[in-house]
């Protein structure tokens, strides 16, 4: 082939591939403007986190103009029309007028990840930079403490790695414990220290000190009970991830890995006094930190059928009976307010 022939082929290839690329970007960009068909009706309006009115808050999921926007519905009509705010997050949780919104937006060279603390009117109060992609968020029942978990990824000659970083924030003093990995760990009665320690999925008790979380080390996950003021945690049980404390504080709901190494989990409930547990009626793999709607019911997100980018909310009785029921479609990060 002569030089000019080769350049011609190159030019054609650039045009063709460039055209395909531009089309792909254009198609993806226009997706955001198309309202989703089907699903509950959504109206823009103001959402408040004030206690008193019994509402359910969650983030919209799936494509469309309200993707990631915080929405609320009356607790007794979860699949009815939604009020949608203009606060968008990747993960959200709220209690007693304090909300934590984990947000990830594309920056110039890397994602720009933030944890934004909002007040009852969803006004940002403070924001904290995050080291990675948002994963879990919780607020203590009193609204005083917030916790979040992010995935941190790094790269190296040897390996790309994922680890988690979990922080606890006191919204009264704004004191931030940026990484639970600095807390003292007691495992099976002894001090424990290791480089591969990861924490995730904090859940708070009403006393504004006690919390539960998952600790992972040496290839195993543990349920830990911790104290914010003493900066310490103690292991209680194995194979527990993303615990969620029941409102009466007697049980935790959590995801239990079905088989080591497989990304499959069953949702279980454990009695904290006896440490005995039972599986729930949900047979599908749940990869979420479930939220208690009341002392007998759990809500969690599951990928929607046939859609990779959308989740639906489901509920299941906490005692292992009954069967999973859809709560509402196109939603994630449920929180019962009031």
């Amino acid at each position, binding site marked *: *082939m002569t030089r000019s022939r080769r350049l011609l*082929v*190159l030019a054609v*290839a650039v045009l063709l*591939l460039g055209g*395909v*690329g531009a089309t*792909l*970007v254009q198609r*993806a*960009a226009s*997706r*955001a403007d198309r309202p989703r068909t089907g699903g509950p009706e959504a109206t823009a309006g103001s959402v408040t986190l004030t206690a008193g009115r019994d509402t359910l808050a969650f983030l919209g999921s799936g494509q469309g103009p309200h*993707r990631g926007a915080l929405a609320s519905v009356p607790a007794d009509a979860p699949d009815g029309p939604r009020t949608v705010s203009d606060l968008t997050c*990747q993960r959200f949780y709220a209690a007693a007028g304090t909300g934590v919104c984990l947000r*990830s937006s*594309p*920056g*110039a*060279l*890397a*994602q720009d*990840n933030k944890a934004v603390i909002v007040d009852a009117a969803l006004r940002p109060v403070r924001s904290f*930079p*995050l*080291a*990675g*992609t*948002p*994963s879990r968020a919780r607020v203590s029942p009193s609204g005083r403490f917030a916790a979040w978990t992010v*995935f*941190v*990824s*790094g*790269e*190296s*000659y*040897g*390996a*790309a*790695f*994922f*680890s*988690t*970083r979990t922080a606890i924030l006191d919204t009264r003093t704004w004191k931030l414990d*940026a990484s639970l990995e600095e807390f003292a760990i007691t495992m099976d009665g002894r001090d424990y220290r290791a*480089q*591969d320690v*990861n924490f995730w999925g904090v859940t708070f008790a009403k006393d504004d000190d006690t919390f539960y979380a998952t600790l*992972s080390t040496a290839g195993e996950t543990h349920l830990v009970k911790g104290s914010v003021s003493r900066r310490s945690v103690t292991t209680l049980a194995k194979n527990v991830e993303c615990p969620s404390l029941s409102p009466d504080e007697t049980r935790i709901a959590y995801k239990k890995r079905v088989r080591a*190494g497989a*990304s499959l989990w069953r949702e279980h409930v454990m009695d904290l006094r006896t440490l005995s547990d039972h599986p729930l009626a949900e047979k599908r793999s749940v*990869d*979420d930190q479930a939220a208690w709607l009341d002392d007998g019911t759990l809500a969690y*997100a599951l*990928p929607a059928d046939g859609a*990779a*980018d959308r*989740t639906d909310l489901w509920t299941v009785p906490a005692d292992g009976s009954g069967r999973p029921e859809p709560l509402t479609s196109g939603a*994630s990060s449920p929180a019962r307010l009031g």
Partner: protein
Amino acid sequence: MYLADRSAPAGAKTAPGRGSGRGPAVAPTVLALGTVSLITDISSEMVTAVLPLYLIAGLGLSPLGFGALDGVYNGVSALVQLTGGHLADRVRNHKLVAGIGYGLSALCKPLLLLVHSLGPISVILALERTGKGLRTAPRDALISLSTPDELQGRAFGVHRAMDTTGALLGPLAAFLILGVAVDGYDAVFGVSACVAALGVVVLVLFVPSGAGDTPPRPRPAAAPAAPPAPARPDPVRLRDAVALLRLPRLRALAICAVLLGLTTVSDAFVYLLLQRRTGIDDQWFPLLPLGTAAVFLLLAVPAGALADRIGRRTVFLTGHALLLAAYGLLLWAPDWPALPYLVLALHGMFYAATDGVLPAAVAATVPESLRASGLALVGTGQALARFGCSLAFGGAWTLWGTGPALAAAAAGLLCCAAVAGHVLRPAPPAPGAPPAPAPPDPARRP
């Protein structure tokens, strides 16, 4: 990141008969390969940059444990590199084998759109890595075979600089797309596939299939077994490749690469250490590799040219001394605001002084017909040694904490560098010449 495509050593020596010294700055083949690497790196770094976000936010997966698998792929990739190098010598068509590697990686990108769980995604990334392993040695062999002896360092420097440029542009492109199209991961993967395909097109069109004698006209890549190069009727056998280790100079280089690799703490640990010991904010963590890459990019060419002038051994060892200085600074951790910049600068200088210089040195010791095998041998040794170092360093960190682990690595690096300095001392007959026992080279200036 920019390690995207490295790890293969490269070789050098077949001066294509150009007069001494200052021929054209850089062989067209090197520029063509640099362009291919640049484009391919844009493509693969686009995916790497958005992958965490895609897995967690897009698919709602918990990617913990992903890292462990990744380590395994890296071991596999190192061994694939050996296969790729040997295969390229065997069929005498480096371009074909490199092209298969680039093509395989390109095919993996659109597949990412079709799978939505961690298992299949891991498989696709492993295939992508296999493509990378396959192409590295033949590509470096092509670079070395198209460049006269005394310009090898600079040629590899140019290639590495272009490669790293791509690695820096990739995330930029990816986040630009995500900025335009909210959650447009499919668009990112699609565009990445198009970019990778363009890389293959450039390879096919503009890179000659270096069967050794640097044909003036590139042949179409499709031609399988290279048209028999007139000179070499002997088939290349596995035994020949293994016998390479009997070459004293190559053996010395291989030993040094392995020894130094065993004490080179992986980038991820360097960034973690930097963050822990200097207390820089979380939000800067993802940007740390960019600092290293920027310095590497700026200095790769000057360092390569310097290596050609004052000796590759000197530059290679100086690079490790700079790394040692970076370890030292991290150990000392003085309270200077400039400390993170300084460490990243040293880390980038380390790459600039070693990453292209090692292949340049290796190439000078290996006969043309086994160039890719020789490069792969040293590259694989180095990659496996670094992998071993990651495991050991992780263990030491757990047992002893960061300070002692780093101190141990620094002490190890000092010892290994001393041994390497001794092993690589210039062969008596050619004082002041590049470390390679340069085969008689008429072109060398008096």
